[in-house]
């Protein structure tokens, strides 16, 4: 009956960490917008979240040792990927600043969403502990 933070918080703490990391990557892209030969990078959010054990895998559960594992192949590229440039640049730079800014704004908003979810979870736990109505 003990409170398990991992269970209570769900995927939101992982998601928030990942959002922070992605903010860093996008900031690096924007900082290197004028660097010749720089290739913009990004992460596949879904794949990483899946690799960290969070989220709905969408595959079948195995309840017996002889069941086939239908899960998607374990490590589906959790690293950094390169962005496909919309149009080639003369200096081989693949950063599209507008695109990166949009992604950064979206990431900040999703970060805020994760924060809201986490905050809600913490508030719920607090209510459970103190037994009071807020």
């Amino acid at each position: 009956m003990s409170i398990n933070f991992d269970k209570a918080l769900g995927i939101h703490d992982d998601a928030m960490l990942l959002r922070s990391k992605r903010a860093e990557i996008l900031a690096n892209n924007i900082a290197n917008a004028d660097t010749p030969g720089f290739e913009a990078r990004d992460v596949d959010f879904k794949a990483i979240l899946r690799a960290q054990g969070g989220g709905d895998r969408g595959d079948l559960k195995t309840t017996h040792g002889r069941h086939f594992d239908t899960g998607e192949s374990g490590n589906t590229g959790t690293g950094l990927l390169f962005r496909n440039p919309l149009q080639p640049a003369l200096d081989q730079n693949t950063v599209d600043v507008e695109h990166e800014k949009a992604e950064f704004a979206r990431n900040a908003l999703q970060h805020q969403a994760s924060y809201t979810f986490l905050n809600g979870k913490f508030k719920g736990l607090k209510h459970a502990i103190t037994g009071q109505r807020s």
Partner: protein
Amino acid sequence: MSLLKVFDIAGSGMSAQSLRLNTVASNLANANTVSSSIDKTYQARHPVFQAIQDQYMTMSEELDTSGQGVQVLGIVEDKAEPRPIYQPDHPLANEDGYIFMPDINAVEEMADMISASRAFQTNVDVMDAAKQMMQRVLQLGQ
């Protein structure tokens, strides 16, 4: 805390862009600087940017090789030949009556200036967004 690294990265971008703005200012200021010989003529300067790579390889996560920002590798001088102008009565004219002016395209420099200042602003926006994200995290559970 990777959000703290955003400040470093955006800061490196800001400092690189401000150096670029410096070179533009220098080029524009010296666009009309004449001299009496080709070697002594001012040459337009341009910074060379390079992405900072991680100094160390992290074993744990591949994610940690996301980069550290941008640095200025150096400043190169433009290869454009100075323009000789025939002005025998100029105090700096050489024995043939020529003075030399740097071949600086003011319009190009202005475009470079706008690009640099916009890129600077973008980095400031990134820093501001990261600040807001961090402040929000600090209020978690309150």
